[in-house]
């Protein structure tokens, strides 16, 4: 379970996350959607321990991220929005490094790497330097790295970026299996139909705070819209702005 209470993050005079209260149940995929700069990535970075909150608490699997960061990091698998990887290592080196840092026994590590490499058709790249991999393959390394220690919490920031439809489908299946096994997943994406397909509940974040939360159907009912894109525009109060810009574009044509 992931719980945040009054989570706030200030960057100087800018409030990136403002009194954020979240609750992601065990066995739930929670979609965190929001416009650019709404605070999604900052929230995820706080949950993973990269950033410290200015105030409030963040609990992952009963562990306070601020009070016990190492204990919390053991439970979390994180896929950042763009892969952060050691470019001069090979995926083989990278997985071994992670195995060592996360104390994964050799046999378990081998089994999991083989399992995910097979699933993501990754074997041909095992000894290629990460710096020379395509974006999609780097993303696969990033995803496998996040799953290797069998985390109870998965935080995925635009994890489907760069993946081809086949691999994206496989990743969705893997996420469902994680969910079935009682793990909590926070999933952020700008591809709204994907969020609709994958997530059990969705939270719309704007200006650092959750403006609406619920299942896709609940959100649709709330704003009386049938399409998830319209729901998003309505809840983030972007509909008028989008209409104005579209009008202006038409006029300049």
């Amino acid at each position: 379970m992931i719980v945040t209470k009054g989570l706030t993050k200030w960057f100087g005079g800018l409030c990136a996350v403002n009194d954020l209260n979240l609750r992601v149940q065990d066995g739930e995929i929670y979609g965190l959607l929001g416009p650019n700069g709404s605070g999604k990535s900052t929230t995820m970075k706080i949950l993973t321990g990269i950033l410290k909150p200015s105030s409030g608490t963040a609990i992952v699997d009963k562990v306070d991220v601020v009070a016990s960061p190492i204990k919390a990091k053991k439970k979390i698998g994180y896929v950042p929005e763009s892969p952060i990887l050691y470019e001069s290592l090979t995926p083989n080196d990278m997985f071994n490094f992670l195995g060592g840092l996360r104390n994964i026994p050799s046999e378990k590590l081998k089994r999991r790497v083989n399992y995910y490499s097979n699933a993501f058709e990754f074997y041909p790249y095992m000894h290629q330097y990460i710096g020379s991999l395509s974006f999609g393959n780097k993303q696969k390394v990033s995803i496998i790295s996040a799953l290797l220690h069998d985390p109870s919490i998965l935080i995925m920031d635009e994890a489907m970026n760069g993946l081809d439809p086949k691999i994206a489908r496989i990743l969705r299946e893997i996420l469902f299996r994680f969910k079935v096994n009682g793990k909590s997943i926070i999933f952020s994406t700008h591809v709204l139909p994907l969020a609709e397909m994958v997530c059990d509940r969705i939270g719309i974040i704007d200006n650092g705070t959750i403006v609406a939360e619920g299942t896709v159907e609940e959100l649709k009912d709330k704003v009386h819209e049938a399409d998830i894109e319209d729901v998003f525009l309505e809840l983030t109060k972007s509909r008028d702005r989008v209409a104005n810009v579209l009008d202006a574009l038409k006029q300049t044509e």
Partner: protein
Amino acid sequence: MVKANPMIANDRERLESELKRSSSILRNVVFQSLPLLTFGIFIASAIILAESREVVLGLLGSLAFIPLILSIYQTAVQATYLNSLGVFDNLKMMPTRLGGHYLSGVIALDLIPNFAFVLPSVVILLIQKPLVGTLTLLWFLLGIILGHVIGLAIFTTFGLKIQSYKGRYNFLKVIVKVIALIVVLTLFFSLIYAYEYIIPYMGFMTELSVIYPMAITSVFDPFFSIFLLILHSIFLLLIYYYISHKIWERILEPIITSDRRIQNEYFPSTRSKMSSLVLKDLKMISRQTAMIAGFLLPLFVLIPQIVLAVQEGDLSLTQITFFIFIVGALTLSGSDAVLKIEGKNLDFLRTLPLTKDQYIIGKAVTMSLIPMILSIILVVFGIYYYISAILLLPLAFLLPLTSSFFTMIYLFRYEEEDIGIPDINILKMIVLFIIVGLLFGLIAVPILLLNTYIGYFTSYGIASILMISAYLHLKL
């Protein structure tokens, strides 16, 4: 650059203050120049006291070599670091050809303080003999530029190459790269060696002093010196023009070499946290040759001294001990490179269950390993002359570790619990050299005073106590 350091970028207040601080170029240059200026004054005082022209020339010859080496080192390491931070990534899309000038411009700020080292000597000569002083000034400037160009060449040749697959003979390739680097870095001594031993027998071109840094000895012959300066400048301009074009081409499209392996299998090899961290760092260093240059500094200082001692036939046990102390002290020079290899990956490291002390001790061990190997080679070399040199083996382990642990204590004084990359500037390095110098002085006292087995064992005792206390301090 400031924004690219995740440790600073993630902290808005610190980012603002760092941006303010780093935006004051003049303040930074003055701040970094002052310690070097102090050292320069010591050397300038030797020029004042010099009794003959030969002594002055000897001092200038040695002095000319320092800005050259500092420039090579700073350019190679800084260029690799900047590239690893991805500072060129956004510029690649620009419809302009920036060339290597942009990189030179960024690095130039780090090179200006090197001039402070030679400035006092230049001022003295300008007062005593204005023309000689002016020529000396020009030669030193040329030395800094030459070092920068060699550094850029190292970076372009080794730092901008992407090898797709880890080859079968990767280890051998690393060895070859290291040897190539040693040859470049010890070019000065190779020239002296050639000048003294080879060329007289070959009977041609006995005046190798036409090449920098020895060419600086021509300052008392102004016409010849100006001629040499012009020749050097033309040569440098041509090389720089070539490299600056090449560098941008390689930044835009790095050379990708493929040594494809048929094997696609995963080979697990799990280790402890510390070993994993150290092994990861060593792999990364060995695959970024420009970074290796940062670790070879002790070798560069040692080679001439060892060659000199062997030539004069007076290599003593005390001298070998002295060399091991030098290697130990110079361990701290690797701190910059060992921390900078993390580059923008620091955020990734911060998502892993790794504590600050594990990270720091891992880095300290990594930076000790190469000096340890060098010290062991020195001990083996010593055993060839005196079997009792085996007695020095504990020092080969204790001194690099003591040096690196104290370096890390000094650099990581910040209160934050998070792992990070502290700023390392010349002032900090000089303070570190003084701290390590004092500690090593303490360790050396029993050897110097007693010069017996008891002296050596007492020194090991002191070194062990210092090393263990530093380790415990880092651990707690």
